[in-house]
């Protein structure tokens, strides 16, 4: 096997490893980050008036449910 292949493979492996182990270094978790990002995106759309008031309520309720879930999770862990 030649050197470029080894170097490319090593670089890819390290990059992937860093990505895979990222949740252990981050304060924020990836799942939460994804869902928070999605909620924020929805709220941004709502405030821009692109979604009806029904959509706004839906989005807020999702956020509220999300917070509720976090609270429940916290209680359960305690």
């Amino acid at each position, binding site marked *: *096997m*030649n050197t*470029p*292949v080894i170097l*490319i*493979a090593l670089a*890819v*492996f390290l990059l*992937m490893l860093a*990505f*895979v*182990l*990222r*949740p*252990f270094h981050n304060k924020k*978790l*990836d*799942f*939460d980050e*994804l*869902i928070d990002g*999605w909620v924020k995106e929805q709220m941004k759309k709502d405030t821009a008036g692109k*979604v009806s008031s029904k*959509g706004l309520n839906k989005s807020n309720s999702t956020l509220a*449910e999300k917070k509720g*879930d976090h609270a429940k999770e916290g209680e359960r862990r305690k």
Partner: protein
Amino acid sequence: MVGPLGNILLVMAFLFSGYSVVAALIGAIKQNNKWLSSAYNSSIAIALLTAVSFLILILGFITNHFEISYVAQHSSRALPLYLKISAVWAGQEGSLLLWCFLQALFTTIALHRPSEKARSLVPWACVILSLVTFFFLFLNLFFSNPFTVSAQIPMDGMGLNPVLRHPGMILHPPILYIGYVGLSIPFAFGLSAVINHQWENWTDAIHGWILLAWLALGFGLLLGMRWAYDVLGWGGFWGWDPVENTGLIPWLAATALLHGSVMQNEKRGFWVWNFWLAVSAFAFVLLGTFTTRSGLVQSVHAYSQSNLGVILIIGILFVLLSSDLVFFNHRKSEPPKQPLPSLISRDGLFFLTLLLLATLTVSILIGSFLPTLSMAFSGQSLELSADWFDRVTGPQFVILVFLLGVCPLIGRAAATLNKIRKRWWYGLAGIAVAVLVAILLGLTLPLALIGFSLAGLTMALIIAEIIDGISKARQSSDPGQETKTITLLMNQQRKYGGLLVHLGIVLMALGIIGTKLYPFEQTVTLASNDTVQLKSLTFQFIELTQSVQADHTEVTASVRVFQGEKYLYTLKPLVDDYGSGTQSLTTPAIQSDLHQDVYVIVGGWEPGGKSATLKIYFNELINFLWMGGMVLLAGGALAIWPRKRDTTLKILVTLLILLILMGAACMMWGLPHGVTREIFSPTLSASIPLQFHLPKDRGEGLQKKLSPGLQFSFEEEIPL
């Protein structure tokens, strides 16, 4: 560089998949989000690595890297680009790599942004899906590696199997794999639901995945049927080949799961059925993989040599045993079952449908594996013919078609009576029209009339249900508000999608009635300008011509078809010869119209090409089969339509669906099927000299194959 790099990426994907299983397991047991997120990130990494690995393999094919054994075995320099790309999944190694990529991709998508209902199921689903990805990567890396490099680099590859040189090769395998891989998602979420004691909601959370897998499998099977009809030259579309059957079996299980999940989503029980249907559908996928890749079953679809059999059997046993263990360990948490109201109720008919689909699946399973099992246990193979399958499955399909029509009629008791009172005349009209059409087409066998009546009844009741829905939606919206009517209808997209699917199946049933009850096949040997009268058509054999292509020799027969004295068209069936050691490929010429297909193939020819043997088929109503398939796909696409208000997603899905439908339509009717019309309409009496031109070197080999033992003379040059 291509081979080693692809291999290293595959090794990395395998290592990450191992890590993903461990991380997901720790995360699920300890309920630790960090481990779960890491496992999820790992699945993204696996998807990326397998994608790049797959792209590298494609690059290897395009750029003729024959040092990779897999490329050398399935490609050659003369192969056109589209076939070079589709040759990537022509063999076991490449198709497994595609499978691994799709498995990793679907795992990532299924676990990404889970809905509220699915969130609590994600940890264990992540464990199970990671395990499935790990299993397939293990097979791919250690038992069927596409990047194995050979010590001697050949100048050219061995080329692609002639049967696989067809546009169907581009779509048929990948779409089937999407269906197969898609069925791992209900399996993982079903198992996770039982582990989490959430028996009731899981099907609702992944209904889209069940639909996707069902639709992809259905589309894949339909493409396969058309491909077989276009290429194999036996006049049929379904030969009850064991491998064909192992594609149909998961589709039937997925159909049952789809119906069961509708009932479960309406809180009407069926969760135990659905759990086992999800498990069995996935186990059938593995069984199909075993059938194709174990080397035990002889089939046009099977890979000839394989060492995967034992590992796949272990995989199937693991799936079944672990599902048993999970089910019986957590059975106490099952919510109380709801009693079935009565058989003549919506629940009852759904139950009957599930039962019927289960018996169909078991019948086909027995028929497919009896020869292999009898050989293993008694040393004698009990072969079951296509007739056996027709006799056993035929009546079950008839009852199923009847249920398709009756199911929408049955609701709550009072509503049912009301519906029957309103629609009985629709049913009668449907039967009358269908019988009249059958008589006009000359299909007057009692069985055909019964079949047509049943199809007419079912179609009429389905159409009545659709019309009723549209009129109700129009009544609910103000006059002139068509958009609101469409919105109201789209709110019930799954219902109308389902009705369209049922309509498609009834149309397909008409095609099957026509081809099965009115088979017509005639083998004739004709000298130049000789004619034969078959049904209302006169066939006149004109000549055989030969042309040398880049990697094969093509022999074409010209057959003019007349009705009375009137010239209709010229059919040009082909025989492609790919040199010694490979089989010849017989391509039929097919003239299609709504009533029937005229299907002609070249069976052989006499010395000097003085006469040719032609096989002529009339396939009654076969186009109803393809049209029904298209309606089925359109219905499935309507049902899977995204409900979210995301315009980009909707545009993307619309484009994808249009692309799929156009691809399917091209496959059915767009490809040239050897039919031409001559500019100056010839007459039956015109005498045209026979031209038969073969170069000596290639002609001798081809002649030996088609008419062995006969003397033959050759021209030295090919006239242009």
